């Protein structure tokens, strides 16, 4: 029997909130699926649309961008810029025909270890039935 499909999720986590939230989940020994590849960035506002496209083209089955809640950004406004820019990216990807589940954004604060682990459970659950992402994948 073939092994069950395990999606690979590339997660861009901001250093000040979401990364710390993921860390908290870790040090608190909360369990969550190992499908996520965390990449720490300085701010969600530093996530260029190129990062997202690049992750998809390198074969990510899902991409997550996570930052501080509005009002809590370490750089005051970074997450507001991210919200606007990535809303456009999401609309564009879906317009081209990418499943909406494959690109997600979240606000996770440094104290929300529980939220982070639950989020990863949910993402994995949503991505599994979609199978591997082959649309944007580089395959030569």
């Amino acid at each position, binding site marked *: 029997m073939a092994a069950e499909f395990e999606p690979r999720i590339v997660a861009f986590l901001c250093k000040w909130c979401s990364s710390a939230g993921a860390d908290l989940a870790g040090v608190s020994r909360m369990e969550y699926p190992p499908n996520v590849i965390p990449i720490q960035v300085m701010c969600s506002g530093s996530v260029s649309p*190129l990062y997202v*496209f*690049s992750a998809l083209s390198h074969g990510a089955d899902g991409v997550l961008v996570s930052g501080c809640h509005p009002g809590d950004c370490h750089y005051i406004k970074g997450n*507001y*810029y991210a919200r606007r820019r990535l809303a456009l990216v999401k*609309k564009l990807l879906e*317009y081209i*025909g990418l499943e909406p589940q494959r690109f997600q954004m979240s606000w996770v604060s440094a104290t929300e270890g529980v939220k982070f682990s639950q989020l990863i459970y949910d993402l994995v659950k949503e991505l599994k039935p979609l199978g591997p992402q082959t649309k*944007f994948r580089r395959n030569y």
Partner: protein
Amino acid sequence: MVSLDQLKEEVKKALSSGKVKYFIGYENIGSGWQVRPAFIRQPEDVDRLVWTPACFHNLVRFLHDEKRRRAREKNPDIRPVGLVVKGCDSRSINVLLQEKYIERNDVYIIGVSCELTGVINITKLNQHLNGLKPQKVLFGSKGTFKVIVDDREIEIEAPDILADRCLECPANFPVIADVILGEEIKRNPGNRYQSISAYEKMALDERWSFWQQQFSRCLRCYACRSVCPMCYCDECVADSIAYAVTAETTADEKAQKTRWVERNPELSENIFYHLVRAIHLAGRCVDCGECERVCPVEIPLRLLNKKMEKEAKELFGYEVGFDPAQPPLIACFRDNDPQDFIR
């Protein structure tokens, strides 16, 4: 009606008074009806100028060349360049001003109103004429085009052969100009996002198969980038051979450059290029339609641009190209920007 004599007069005035360095307008190609950009340097050359429904080129793009030329020259002539602009073209000047790529006095603008018509789409014209060869294509009276075929005059209703962008144009007269020719008559654009509504309604997989087919045909000739008044970067992230290299660039620096997109026109790279192109033009594209017009394989680029234009308007209330003083779309935000998609 825009009077050609008046246009020539204005250009002559600007040139002979030394107000402008040179003037860019349109001229006929040979004795035919098609036109090309004309660079007018002497007042006596103004008779080359024409203004016809085939003047679809957006001349604002030439300001990039001028800016580069100035940067190269030791003692550049900093007088403004004169341009003939339509409504859409004028909005692209506003975006360049907004991004501080140019200053207002770098350009002397003669705006022409499209009144009840606009520019034509050659494919539509040919279909309409059903094999007949036009000799002249002119503006008619009251929202029609006058086409001369076999020395006969045919009157065509504007919407039958208007370019798609004109049918969805939000303002068919110049929004910034030093001189405006013609009347400010607003043509009703109807639904400004008509062209994309069918694609938005498609099922996800249908959309994917449509775009997959389109993108797989792209040759990556970058004609769409060359012609765009907004694509002025010296380096293009979507093109690994366009890195700016000077005598000081070391081999190491060249090797370290991130290559986001590979050069080969494979589907995955083409998609990447087009995603980047669309997102980098979001809130900047004025829908002058030039990219789609020049594409040798007829990829419907306007459908991407228009989608971004619509989302900017609907999500953020942002209109492109009307106000040179407003901050660019992604360089600003509102506290209540929508975030229902964020978990």
